[in-house]
């Protein structure tokens, strides 16, 4: 690992307690620009809790998070997104009554710089900026093979398409770090295969870092460059995929003794 690369995420000694119960503890994590990183572990290991802390949905009890060098302390989820972190959810959270296109355009909310009166009075700036954002959103949808569904209501999309739309929406916020929470959950092997290609494509196309939680080991070992294994909120192992695969501790945690 060349340490000269730009660090997108720097986590030190991160921990959170829920009413005396420590859910995550002593987590250190570095992710470099353009890296695809895997966060794995048995159910209840605290993986999603890490995501919730990184996006500031939960406030950590201890430790520091830096995204692109910026300290995330005291930020709320909205500010965290503005710093450059976006995510998807384990249980899909789309704007299910809005159109597919509008879901993506909503992701561009802060990028669209026109005010309330511009939209009420329909000033030329409204048309100009809306047109631009529609174009950009359509390009994003095309990457995910969703452009033909643009006008459909998001809630009516098939399951796999909903997962892809969630990624597209997150990317619309122009993040530096993308968090994917079990992107392959509920997908068949062929869909998972396509998803792997897509994740690589996203990384190359947008030049961003990706941190993903996944149970599908084929996907994790296939695309992640480095991996952290969590168990009971603690780091069990950290390293390259082949190191993780041969780590006896990890095997024990997954299969049990």
């Amino acid at each position, binding site marked *: 690992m060349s340490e000269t690369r730009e660090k997108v995420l720097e986590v030190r000694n991160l921990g959170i307690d829920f009413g005396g119960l420590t859910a995550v503890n002593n987590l250190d994590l570095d992710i470099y620009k353009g890296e695809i990183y895997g966060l794995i572990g048995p159910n209840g290991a605290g993986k999603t809790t890490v995501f919730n802390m990184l996006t500031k949905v939960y406030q950590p009890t201890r430790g520091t998070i830096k995204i692109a060098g910026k300290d995330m302390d005291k930020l*709320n989820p909205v500010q965290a997104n*503005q710093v450059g972190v976006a995510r998807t959810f384990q249980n899909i959270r789309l704007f299910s009554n809005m159109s597919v296109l*509008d879901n993506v355009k909503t992701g561009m909310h802060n990028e669209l710089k026109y005010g309330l009166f511009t*939209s009420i009075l329909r000033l030329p700036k409204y048309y100009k900026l809306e047109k631009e954002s529609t174009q950009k959103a359509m390009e994003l949808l095309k990457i995910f093979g969703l452009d033909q569904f643009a*006008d459909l209501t998001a809630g009516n999309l098939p399951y796999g398409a909903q997962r892809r739309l969630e990624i597209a929406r997150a990317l619309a916020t122009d993040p530096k770090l993308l968090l994917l929470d079990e992107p392959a959950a509920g997908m068949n092997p062929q869909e998972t295969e396509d998803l792997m290609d897509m994740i690589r494509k996203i990384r190359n196309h947008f030049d961003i870092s990706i941190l993903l939680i996944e149970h599908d080991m084929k996907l994790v070992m296939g695309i992640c460059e480095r991996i952290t294994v969590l168990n009971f909120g603690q780091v069990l192992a950290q390293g390259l995929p082949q190191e993780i695969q041969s780590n006896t501790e990890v095997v024990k945690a997954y299969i049990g003794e």
Partner: protein
Amino acid sequence: MKLVKSLFGPKTRGRSISFALVIVAYIVISILQSAGSIPRMISSLLVPVCCYIVAAIGLNMNVGISGELNLGQAGFMSVGGFSAAITNAVLLNTVSNDFVRLLICIVIGALIAGFVGWLISIPVLKLEGDYLAIVTLAFGQIIMSLMNNLYVGFDADGIHFGFINNTMQLGEGGKMIVSGPMGVTGNKMISTFTVGFILILISLLVVYNIIYSKEGRAIQACRDNKIAAETIGIKVSSTKTLAFVVSSALGGAAGALYMMNYSSVAATKFDFNTSILILVYVVLGGLGNMTGTLISTSVLVLLPEMLRFLSSYRMLVYAIVLIVMMIVTNNEQIKTFFEKFKKQKGVQAHE
């Protein structure tokens, strides 16, 4: 044509239908009215219908688009109405043109109601679901109580306010504008159907233009999934506040128009029942569906008049109509029938 397009924006059929509906209705009613073929009972309801439509469009912004149940819309009508009555009395001699004065009254009613809405939204939007709803109910009741005890007089020295007990000593030529439980008295009636029509158009324009903008998308995003909206950088509280304030401002404008249609209106006119009535219009018209709101409000305001032949049974029939409509529109079989129809259309559009 280009101007029309730029005014009404791209695509979106629902919006064009709404505007067309309002304009056609206005033309037809105006023609019928000049021919004298509208019964007095109905024509006296024309302005109130406009008021309820505007209040309901506003409420639909809050309940349908923003997804927060509001049981206090009448409170904002009250604030708008009373502000307008005071404005009307104060400006009576300065602004002699009734039309201009009416517009000023409506604008002031909307602004003050919007401001009160903003103040109220600060505590209200900290809550969720049914708890939020009850707090809007509570504010509606509080506004009614306060207005019911308000005394406002106007004389050469300016405006005088009194609360609970009227101890006001008005100078010569002075008059009471608001007299506690009697409400507004001696108001000069200046509302017209045409102004009501214009107000509906403006309300539709404002609401639609917000819905189809980044703010509108943000409002709907917060309704559909608050947490997801936050993580893509949308400030939930300020977004919901916007919907709430627009809703209350339109309620205020509606209240102003309503007040200017009568010489006296008591504060109890804008009670919980009125709030509920407006909510019924919105729900029956369809959440987030402005065209539906236009139709349901017009029909339901006029329905008791149309049922007059049933004499004392009319409100009973009205109640039954309400229940049956809710049951029918929620019937699974009927729903699936319409959904099939919709889906077919949707697929065709994509082929």
